[in-house]
């Protein structure tokens, strides 16, 4: 199966339906789906990385279709970052951690996954 087919058929094993989301979670899902549809700009990447710095998923602590929407849009770029130097890894560290989680939970074939070196010594993050 090609990567394109893999991404279009992506499913998460434990998706939480909209009916079980709070207003705050629904708003975050709506926000990131709209921003993703607007295009993956540098500002979008910066905002997403900052947003994911203290969250597991796009709405916080629950996997939703919002994760799949954003994952499909950033997966190719994340693949490029994963091969970059320490500064590139550090700049996108929270997105890469999240991509790794989603590719695991969505059961992306091993040969199509982004490989991250968790032994890399990233510089301390300045907040």
């Amino acid at each position, binding site marked *: 199966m090609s990567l394109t087919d893999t991404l279009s058929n992506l499913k998460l094993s434990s998706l939480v339906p909209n009916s079980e989301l709070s*207003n*705050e979670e*629904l708003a975050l*899902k*709506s926000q990131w789906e*709209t*921003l993703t549809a607007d295009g993956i700009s540098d500002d979008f990447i910066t905002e997403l990385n900052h947003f994911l710095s203290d969250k597991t998923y796009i709405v916080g602590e629950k996997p939703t279709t919002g994760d799949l929407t954003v994952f499909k849009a950033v997966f190719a770029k994340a693949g490029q970052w994963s091969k970059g130097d320490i500064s590139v890894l550090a700049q996108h560290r929270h997105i890469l951690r999240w991509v790794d989680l989603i590719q695991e939970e969505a059961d992306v074939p091993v040969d199509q996954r982004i490989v991250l070196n968790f032994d890399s010594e990233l510089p301390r993050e300045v907040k």
Partner: protein
Amino acid sequence: MSLQLYADRGSKLPSLVRNLKVAIGASVFQPKLKLTADTEKEEYQLVLIDKKSGFELIEPNAIVKYLSATSTNGTAEAFEVDPLEATLNEILRRRKFDDSILPLVKPFSKADSTSVIQILAFATLYPVLTKTAHKNEGFEGLKEWFESFASLPEIANGVSAATGLTNLDRPKEQN
């Protein structure tokens, strides 16, 4: 109230549209919430912040939907996506505010200030349908809805708040 709403301080039309969306959303759904300029920050970004929980939203459509859903009679149905929303977002993304966008939006049968999609449509069409020199020929139905929507007091309040906080670059004078 723990919610704070800060304006987009950009000087182009998309900033005006974004500020219109959230200022009208606040005026309609949470009248005590006012759009303000955060002069302490250098960043020019629009944001809704709940000071108590730290919850933040930066995308205007999501902010309007959240304000609707959490209003007195609000429901989660506010988050349902209207097919027109993608078209309106595309207009904003392309920054194309001229008569060519008018055929993309069908007139609404009745002005309803509590309709999220009407708020988003009104804000997006505002730069085109308020040009005084334009007659918008062929789009009288749309113009009629727009003017009817604009005349509602809660909408007028939102427009006033947004336009008061958005300093648009003036177009260069032509000889």
